[in-house]
């Protein structure tokens, strides 16, 4: 029986106590998951932030997340690492040429409004330094 493999995006927050555990290693080794890390950071307070794609069967992903949940880790689905503030966006579109995945793009050629597809964002953060209005910020 072949099982559908899916890819989902997660944003994990590790409090200080959990940053020393090899959680990602175990996701790969024990749960057959393919991990693609977009961005990771350990703060000066030793808190950890991790933005990643997890690829695997829905069952393996569910088991992997259940494993992660045995630690004191906050799991958020989708991209929470790059925050686009719609109210601050002046709709100039300067970010769109710098966004490698067209996560930030011109929604339609008539209104030329800027739109953001969260699932396309790989958190390269090119938008941050290119936005004149501070509409793109990093959660960490």
């Amino acid at each position, binding site marked *: 029986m072949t099982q559908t493999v899916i890819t989902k995006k997660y944003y994990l927050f590790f409090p200080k106590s959990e940053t020393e555990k090899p959680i990602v290693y175990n996701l790969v080794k024990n749960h057959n998951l393919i991990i693609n890390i977009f961005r990771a950071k350990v703060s000066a307070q030793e808190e950890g932030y991790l933005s990643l794609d997890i690829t695997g069967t829905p069952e393996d992903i569910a088991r992997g997340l259940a494993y992660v949940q045995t630690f004191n880790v906050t799991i958020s689905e989708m991209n929470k690492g790059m925050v686009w503030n719609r109210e601050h966006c*002046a709709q*100039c*579109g*300067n970010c769109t*040429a*710098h966004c490698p995945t067209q996560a930030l793009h011109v929604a339609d050629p008539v209104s030329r409004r800027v739109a953001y597809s969260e699932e396309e964002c790989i958190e390269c953060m090119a938008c941050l*330094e*290119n936005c*004149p*209005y501070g509409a793109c910020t990093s959660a960490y």
Partner: protein
Amino acid sequence: MEKSMTTEAGTTTLRTYDEINRKIESGKAVVLTAEEIIDFVDQHGLEEAAKQVDVVTTATFGPMCSSGCFLNFGHSTPRIRITEAWINDVMAYSGVAAVDVYLGATQLRHHDPANMYEVGEFRYGGGHVIEELIAGKELQLFALSYGTDEYPRRELRTYFTINDLNQAIMVNPRNCYQNYNVAVNCSAKRIYTYLGILEPHMGNMTYCSAGQLSPLLNDPWYRTIGVGTSVWLAGARGIVYAEGTQHASLAMRGENGVPQEGAGTLALTANMKEMRPEFVRGVSLKGYGVSLALGVGIPIPILDLDILKATCVRDADLYAHIVDYANDYPNRTGKTLAKVSYAQLRTGEVTLNGKTIPVSSMSSYHKAQEVAALLKDAITAGDFLLSEPSSLLPRQQGMKPLQMRGPSR
């Protein structure tokens, strides 16, 4: 037609400013945006549009560095004759009367390291103070003086909002550049400019114009936009108070008479207490500095057929020149790489020397559409009357470079 006059351009007068204003007052004026007039003329023809349409609204929204404001704080007890002033740590010019200051959009915050350590972020400056002022936020005033007999106070620190000020008047020496360069970087290293970050080897391309919506692209020879013209400045009713600095009407122009480079500019003023915060936005340009983005709308009265024809200009007929900002711009070589239409720029890609380059805009076309629609609504509702310029902008004027004199040139 009851009256038949001939204008300097040689076409018959369709209507006068007075007639248009009477129609606006009675709520009967027909107003279209500079986008809508294109489709209207395509569908109904020029003659029909000339009969029906009274006003076309133009607009733009983008960074306009030559902007700022005069503020009057009122007098403290005892009085102070301010000689140095900072608003939220951003210096304001105080070489005017006792409690008047001028705050400029590009002024950096005190102690901003600028580009001293690698590339500066320029997160806060004059443009941001102006944005916060209009948004009604509380700001800090710190001022110093040498003290005089009638102005004995020598130091002052207090907090204020725009409502505490006697006057807050925006006075912008150069806004609404008629057209603008398109920027690329031909060098091997990344550069930081007022047209955004430019990646090496023509990695990206930026432009800054509302194109077919832009005020002076719809009135290329300044027939109706002149000194005294009423404008919509960030929601306030303002005026063109002078030609803008660097107004240079002797520019490269296409067959349609429309400039293909900078050309004309406008000096604008309006009361900041009437402005809307969404059209006054502080700008941070990495490696370059701070600025202020403004929404400006200008109505064009359809006085004759030539004026109407000019407002029908579309992005496909509007061109700008691509300039290398790594060498040709800073060194004023005068070289441009190619000419490109706004229709092409808006596709998001331009092919230059065999390379397809991603393109983006520093000017917000979406916000310009909003401004053009808001101005249209204000005129249609009878809330915004047009004014005839008291003098026209110069049509035969160039721009002088600075001649470097003295031993250290």
